[in-house]
């Protein structure tokens, strides 16, 4: 039986682009004790595995994605004293230099925000059901392989 995915304005899966300033300002709203805001933006590189990439297609598992991301976000709040946090992940067709993902973590002091943002990204990379498919200039289409370094990165958090 499927539970409703947690409804939260702090997890967004969307086709359209996001604006860093707008998202950070909205997240800070009403939190006057925030002193540190760490933002991570993942972007589409023009080269992957030595080959030029022209299109990057993002697929996800609706429902499970939101649930997995909200779990990661709440775990980050529990481990570090965050005032606020946000995860946006784009889906659909993207191109080199496009923004893919945004993670924002805000806290009173900078160390918590840095650790939390890094933890969320490492967890997202290994736990959130997204898949990338890339198109090369030749027209060849291939699924992106998961990186061993991503699961190694996740291990240091001892989840």
């Amino acid at each position: 039986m499927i539970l409703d995915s947690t409804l939260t304005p702090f997890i967004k899966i969307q086709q359209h682009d996001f604006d860093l300033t707008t998202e950070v300002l909205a997240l800070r709203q009403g939190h006057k004790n925030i002193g540190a805001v760490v933002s991570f933006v993942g972007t589409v590189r023009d080269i992957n595995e030595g080959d030029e990439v022209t299109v990057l297609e993002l697929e996800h598992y609706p429902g499970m994605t939101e649930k997995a991301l909200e779990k990661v976000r709440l775990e980050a709040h529990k481990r570090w004293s965050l005032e606020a946090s946000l995860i946006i992940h784009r889906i659909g067709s993207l191109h080199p230099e496009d923004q893919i993902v945004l993670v924002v973590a805000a806290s009173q002091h900078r160390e918590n925000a840095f650790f939390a943002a890094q933890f969320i990204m490492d967890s997202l990379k290994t736990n959130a059901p997204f898949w990338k498919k890339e198109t090369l200039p030749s027209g060849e289409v291939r699924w992106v392989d998961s990186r061993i370094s991503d699961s190694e990165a996740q291990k240091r958090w001892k989840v």
Partner: protein
Amino acid sequence: MDNVIHILYFASFREQLGQAEERLPASYATVSELLAELAERGEYWKTVLLENQNLQIAVNHNVASRETSLKAGDEVAFFPPVTGG
């Protein structure tokens, strides 16, 4: 609640198996039993799912394993390692 389980295939699995979803009778006690049944469809299903060491499984949006038990109404998803972010 229908007396079925809902099965989803994502990413390369969806392409390789030629389908995104299907419904089967809720007659498998565990994910393992379901996988054994799907492998009966042929070598391709056996290779992509049953014998795939990197097979990822979710039941009702939660990470699951071959030992996870199944019941009517469950949503089971099979997919390769995730590559978002």
